[in-house]
């Protein structure tokens, strides 16, 4: 039992340290020792990613470390996913998020940080980049069967791009298919309410909390 605990801790550590090669090997060692792939995902991988997210909040690690941990998580999943499939199990994810910066806005740092924190929280995240048209948000969300569309804006004059996405979804009768989150320095709760967004957060960590709540709501709708 101690050995199994130790192996899971090593997987967790590899994720925290962002060591993709070690994460892959640690995941394989877990399977070789008879640990169920689901336990390796939940206890080794997910807990490791969660700890990295918490460390970011305390500025003990930064965006590059989060990216490396997410990559280590992907490397471990390359080993664990086939084992999960063989066992007839599927790694649960809170949901799928399509994220990008509003049309006309080329700033990416806030979007990049939220994107990483969402990945660490287990979401499937598709980053559409910056200066994204409303039609692209809608089409990609449809293609990827997203639960949430997240739109960042760093300038007051690009905030209308967030409203354009919501209006487009309404116009084509798809507004109830996705939860829409908005954020960015000039964005406020008042603006989010005005344009009919489902959630707004001033901080990236708050954004993750909202995403978890919204994903739960979307899952409830689809049950």
């Amino acid at each position, binding site marked *: 039992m101690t050995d199994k605990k130790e192996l899971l801790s090593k997987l967790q550590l590899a994720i925290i340290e962002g060591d993709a090669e070690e994460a892959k090997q640690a995941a394989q060692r877990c399977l070789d020792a008879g640990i169920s792939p689901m336990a390796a995902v939940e206890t080794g991988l997910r807990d490791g990613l969660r700890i990295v997210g918490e460390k970011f909040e305390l*500025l003990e690690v930064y965006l590059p470390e989060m990216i490396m941990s997410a990559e280590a998580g992907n490397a471990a999943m390359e080993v664990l996913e086939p084992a999960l499939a063989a066992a007839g199990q599927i790694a649960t994810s809170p949901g799928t998020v399509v994220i990008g910066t509003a*049309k*006309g806005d*080329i*700033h*990416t*740092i806030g979007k990049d940080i939220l994107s990483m924190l969402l990945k660490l929280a287990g979401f499937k995240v598709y980053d559409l980049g910056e200066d994204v048209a409303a039609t692209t948000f809608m089409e990609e969300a449809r293609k990827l069967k997203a639960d949430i569309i997240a739109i960042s804006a760093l*300038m007051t004059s690009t905030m*209308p791009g967030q409203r354009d996405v919501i209006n487009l979804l309404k116009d084509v009768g798809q507004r109830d298919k996705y939860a829409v989150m908005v954020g960015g320095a*000039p964005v406020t709760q008042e603006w989010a309410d005005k344009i009919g967004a489902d959630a707004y957060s001033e901080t990236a960590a708050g954004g993750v909390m909202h995403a978890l709540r919204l994903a739960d709501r979307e899952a409830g709708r689809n049950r």
Partner: protein
Amino acid sequence: MIDFFEVIRRAINGAYCAEQDFAMKILVPKLRGVIKKYGIRYDPDTAVPSDDNLADRVFEAGVELCAEVGCYCRDTSRIIRFSRDEIREALRDAPANPVFGEGRDRKAMTARRPESAEAPYCFVGAGGAISSAEEVYVRLVEGYGRNPLIDSVTCPTLTKINGMEVVAGSPLELLACIRSVELGRAALRRAQRPGLPIMNSIATAVTAAGKIAGSAFGLRDSDGWVIGFTSPLQVPFERLNEVAYVLARGGQVVGETGEAMGGYAGGPEGIAVTNVAYHILAILILRSSAHLTFPMDFRYGCNTSWEIMWPINVSTQAICRNSHLPLLNLTYVGAGPVTDMCLYEIAAAKVGRVASGGNIEFGGVAKAITLDHFTPMEPKFASEVAHAVAGMTRAEANDIVKKLVPKYRDRLPNPPKGKKFQEAYDWDSIEPCQEYVDLYGRIKDELTGYGLKFK
């Protein structure tokens, strides 16, 4: 120094690199490498270091980072690189003492040194904060112009034109840019300061087209034109287009950079070194006559936290000891007008940055994102503090910052928004309310007790 055509050639023909690889495979490892090589370590107990050797090592690390990493052009996915010789040449040939403004308001901006007794250049006003209406915009700029210590003005952003929300990239942006310039110039005439330079170009502009079109309606070659990089160490064609335009008309660029602590540059050490690299790139790529910098604490959306003080002050010292291109530090505070927190934040930021050798830009009140929550009082206060700090040692500045930050640090996660301009000021006379005058006086008295010598 290599010319601008060569910069464009490298933006088009430089080495290809995927955007994420530039950040994660080039910038991040090189940055970590130079931090280690030059022994740069954040000191959590110090806000304003007095260590010249540390400052010079930060500068050398920044030079090496610049030479090893270069700048990424997003439009072409190419890296614009410079050799160490080209960097040394750029530092040697960079403009010194650029002159801005007209008539009685014509003035040179100089490169100060740490602990210099020379009064800092004061580029103050709105810091691009957002205004709800043209009438508010005009009164604010007139109020800024009445500040006797102002050397150049930063105008607000117009969020509406003819009652319509400004949308980036649309004709409304272009029209709002034209209107911004017309209103800014008219307001400065009303303040009896028609020659005062408008240095933040057009805060309302998002696109190069907006900025260039708007400029034809009243911006001058003597104004100073803020043009910025994108994080991390990137420049898009939109900004290079603006540089091309300003150079062709004989204007002077103020190169703007603002890396986020917590982002790709990492923590305090990374922010300090990256700030130096940006300084050099501002000379080479943006062809700057001055460098304007505002590293931000990502957690709070401002740059007055304890942790951001060290990297800003140490990199200011690094630049001011080793470059003759003038440096301006832009401060964003969390709190809004008529709050003690706002004035404490301004004082803490300006004491450290001016003692470290910087000139000032102010400001971003209430993070510059809360509609109409800024007044002429905060930039006036910032310029008075800046003048009072001239000649102070870094050790004295450190002691004062240590006293000031605890007065607000617990409130940074949720700072008070304070009052709107319309609530804090008399609409007709453009004079502050008595409550603000009293608060202003009380905080100035407190700072006098700490050793600031207000003129």
